[in-house]
């Protein structure tokens, strides 16, 4: 399978530390994203595979945290790389590759959200939950985040999960840096409020549970 070719080759390169390929992989790992992108622009497939390896999971996580459907998250992560492949000839190293990739991802996400906005109601119930039911904290965090304003939530998530600095967030969302900072502060304060009651109710649930069990017994 073609995909196995890419991922497999990446895995092989990563695993084979003794051979020439392994040395190349190690060498590639030391190269910056921008240099890899330029190499890929010149036709180096290995450079792209290194970039793919670096950003595959972060980009999937980016989409996964923002979309209910796992398959769509994977598709969009893949679509991000496809856009990169198609637009390689036009790439100019004037900004970080990371910002470039997440810029594409944000565009794709916006398009996906527009597409989903019409059929959101019908598709919601049947969708797979984003987090495991076992991870109550994750569910709790997710629900708290959902209560935030959309714009502020995006800034907060870019900061916390994608670890962008204020300037990069400002560039991605085309906002002034000060606006990013104030909105981030607002969103954190709001999230703090959203998390505290949940913590209390959760504590209450935990304390109440033995009583119920006792009742069953």
């Amino acid at each position, binding site marked *: 399978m073609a995909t196995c070719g890419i991922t497999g080759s990446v895995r092989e390169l990563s695993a084979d530390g003794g051979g020439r390929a392994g040395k190349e992989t190690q060498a590639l790992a030391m190269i910056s994203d921008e240099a890899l992108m330029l190499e890929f622009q010149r036709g180096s497939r290995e450079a792209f595979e290194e970039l793919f390896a670096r950003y595959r999971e972060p980009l999937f996580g980016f989409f996964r945290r923002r979309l209910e459907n796992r398959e769509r998250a994977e598709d969009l992560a893949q679509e991000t790389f496809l856009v990169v492949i198609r637009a390689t000839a036009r790439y100019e190293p004037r900004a970080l590759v990371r910002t470039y990739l997440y810029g594409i991802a944000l565009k794709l996400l916006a398009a996906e959200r527009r597409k989903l906005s019409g059929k959101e109601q019908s598709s919601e119930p049947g969708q797979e939950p984003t987090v495991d039911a076992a991870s109550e904290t994750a569910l709790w*965090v997710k629900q708290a985040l959902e209560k935030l304003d959309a714009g502020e939530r995006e800034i907060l998530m870019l900061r916390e999960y994608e670890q962008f600095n204020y300037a990069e967030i400002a560039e991605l969302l085309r906002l002034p840096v000060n606006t990013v900072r104030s909105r981030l502060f607002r969103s954190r304060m709001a999230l703090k409020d959203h998390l505290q009651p949940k913590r209390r109710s959760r504590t209450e649930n935990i304390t109440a549970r033995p009583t119920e069990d006792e009742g069953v017994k």
Partner: protein
Amino acid sequence: MTKTNHPIEQEELMAYLDGELATDRAVTAAAHLEHCQECQRLADDLKGMSQKLMEWEVETSDTENMTDIASALEEREKQPEKTAVSDWRGKGVILRGRRRVWVGAFAMVALLVLAVSIPNWLRSRNGLRGYYAPRDTFTYDAEGRLTTAPQPPPPRSDRNGAAASAGKIYTYDSLNHLNSSGYMDGALSSPRPETKVRQLGVGGSGGTTGKLQSKNQAIDVQQLDDEAQSGDDLETVKSDDLTPSNGPLIVRTAGLTVTTKEFDKARVALGEILKRHHGYIGELNVSAPSEAGRTLTAALRMPSDQLDVTMTELKTLGRIEGESQGGEEVTQQYVDLQARLANAKHTEQRLTDILRQRTGKLSDVLAVELQIGRVRGEIERMQAEKKELAKQVQFATLNTTVKEDYKAPLQMAPPSTSNRFHNAAVDGYRSVVEGLVDVVLFLLSSGPSLLVWAVILFFPVRWAWRKLKKNLVKKDIPAAS
């Protein structure tokens, strides 16, 4: 938390914890955070929140589903050169949907503008070229017919007695008669006074004396030298000889501008006046521009003694707008010319006598003949000059302008709607046909050079277009740069 209690804002504290605070403020924040419990609590909350957020972990991706990347990479490797082009075409990044429509519409509009503007431009150029020439200029030919022939050069006399005028060349034959009658209505006889000429034979003698007779003036014709020994067939016009004994010889010119309400009548009257006074038209132009009065401009020639009478009669044609008269005395010039001519003839006579009576070497004979030839040439030149001068004295020039007092016609009934539609349709059809013809002519005339320029500019323009495409695609993908 306020600034009165805390040197830094909560937001600044958050930025400090994120490593986004400026150095000076970061120092202040660090110092304050060491002893401010309230700020420490906030910092703990923010840190704890970040930790809680990080508890939301997502599962790893399934790379087996990412099939398209491999195929895209392979496709790119197969066509590395065409990736960019096929990309934007295939995906329609630039010319997709509405953009393609807009670009097409723009191209159509540009073509339409070109199709309309080029013929107009060419037409305006033609119009500009024609601006310098009177639009409705009519020239009367020798027989008085109205023609639209191009303007010939103004009348000019040469030494052989040929005079050129608009649409007409007045030629004097060897008898100095005006061959072609250039008079209005073509009915006038020769305006020249009766002349008597004598044809000289080889070694001819016994000249005839003639007198130039005009209506009110008798011009003595100089008796030709009977002893002319030239031996050629030269015809001498006796009418060109004047005697200044009656007074100074003056070349008279005059100008007259008249405005009349009845242009056509004035036009006919002008011809009649000229006919009465034995004059003729040197040049005549009639211009009839649209929405303006007609104008007749004529250079009239008449016997000098008839100039005043003719002018007086012409003034009756309408309101006088301008009048001028001038005269150049040529008596001295004429007398001088006459004396030089007599001397030359005398010299020629003496040389001829020498050739007859003396005998000598052949070289001497040839030298005398050479001198005779030179003197003969001078005599001919001076005779022509004298003839021209005499003609100028005999005939005065009157530059006449007759203007029509124009009244704009009042159009009472507007053209009917159907006529207007018809005219508009005809104009439209004509415009389309002329436009097409003009475009074809333009392509035929400029096509080769355009082709050359297209070949020259093709590669730079293609390079610029690709550059533009890049920029447009980057706008579609904002973070791309």
